[in-house]
């Protein structure tokens, strides 16, 4: 879970989209293996299915889809942020502090196995939101969305296996469809505007 936070911080300061996609994929893999590791002594078929679906979709399918979106839209490799990497990192540390503070305030009871899972999941959720807000391109916003979903997933893990399979799979499917749709949308936006810079979508095409 510490690694999840390190990956969040890395996401905030990288400047190439491909590296970002790699990190998002790594997060998916990490979460999948974490599910298996945390329930290693009582591994049910249901949990195994969730973990494997998570690994397959987040670790492999999403990166492939995102890379295809890049290739088809011919996007430049540089991320153009509203908020530079230095300031993003500082915000990341602030978000971590807030996440730890929330953890100390939440009446969670004894449902948490690993000590830092809840702050890590909040941190990941905040990072996702931050990426959606502070990055210009539609593709990086899509990545922010996936990171956000990773955070919710991590929180789900923390709340033990109490979440029904259907809810888990529904969540995965939602994210999957979203990425798929966004891939198409990015392609369309690119065709229409010759760029995917979300700041300039509102300006009229001349």
């Amino acid at each position, binding site marked *: 879970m*510490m690694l999840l936070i390190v990956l969040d*911080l890395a996401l905030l300061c990288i400047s190439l989209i491909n590296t970002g996609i790699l990190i998002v994929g790594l997060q998916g893999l990490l979460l999948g293996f974490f599910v298996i590791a945390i329930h290693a002594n009582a591994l049910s078929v249901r949990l195994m299915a969730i973990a494997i679906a998570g690994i397959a979709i987040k670790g492999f399918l999403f990166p492939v889809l995102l890379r295809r979106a890049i290739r088809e839209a011919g996007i430049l490799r540089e991320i153009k942020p509203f908020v530079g*990497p230095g300031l993003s*990192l*500082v915000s990341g*540390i602030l978000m971590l502090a807030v996440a730890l503070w929330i953890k100390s305030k939440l009446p969670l009871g004894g449902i948490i196995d690993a000590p*830092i899972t809840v702050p890590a999941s909040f941190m990941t959720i905040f990072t996702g939101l931050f990426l959606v807000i502070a990055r210009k391109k539609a593709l990086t916003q899509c990545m922010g969305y996936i990171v956000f979903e990773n955070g919710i997933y991590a929180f789900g893990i923390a709340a033990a296996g109490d979440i029904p399979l259907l809810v888990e799979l529904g969540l995965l499917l939602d994210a999957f469809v979203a990425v798929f749709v966004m891939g198409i949308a990015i392609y369309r936006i690119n065709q229409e505007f010759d760029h995917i810079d979300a700041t300039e979508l509102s300006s009229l095409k001349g």
Partner: protein
Amino acid sequence: MFNYILALLLAPLLNGVINRVKALFAGRNGPPLLQRYYDIVKLLRKGTVYGASTSWVFRLSAPVGLAAALVALLVVPFGGVYAPVAFGGDILVLAYMLGLMRFFTIIAALDTGSSFEGMGASREAFFSALAEPALLLGVAAIACKTGWMSLSSMLHAASPVSFELLLVVASFIIVYLCENSRIPIDDPATHLELTMIHEAMILDNSGPDLGFIEYSSSLKLWILGALIVDIAAPYRSGLWFVDCAEGVGCMILLAAAVGVTESIMARLRLLRVPQLLAAAGALSSFALLLVLR
């Protein structure tokens, strides 16, 4: 006390190791391991030339820098033994002795009136201002984790490496590379003034002054390396000479790792360096947050 003398004797060897590893990577024979010693001895026997525009500030800088490095080395523990001087808060002595050394290098560079040295000084001031928070926050994390305020005690108590300490080590390695002007941040081998930082500032120094500067930069390499080795390598045996040998071995390994890094990486663009240092600061603050949690 013996460890202090050991550090004084072995510090220039680290430069030799780095250069030798780089030479191996490049397929050359490379300079002898003891080249730094020869350089320093040769420089000490020469006369000094002072530029016409320099004042007493310039003459003062090299001896003050060496003195500051010697004092800083006094508080750094090595080989599982307490440092010769250890008291609560001695980390600040270390940080500000290094700061004093840097300050005098910078004003001496400004004193020469050369524009290249001015540029080097400006970069050095900027980058070290970013590296210092990473160092101090990292030490604060260790201090909170172990509950000791003195560098010797806290590094002694830090030996089972936990995740927080790994973060601190990662951050310190970046600081180590930055403060010693090694490759991702500064290229110590280049002689193109536009791209240099540390080497650009000492262009006007010569003779014994240059020897002092070379020796104090070797000491600095040793001091920051010892911090990393103390955290990352647990001294377990309790036997003094075994711990000492282990420490020296780790220092040489670290120097070799620096040599490998320099061989496989290019220098970062100047604009990217602050980002790397910000990452070091973020790692340190992350560690501190985890400890305070």
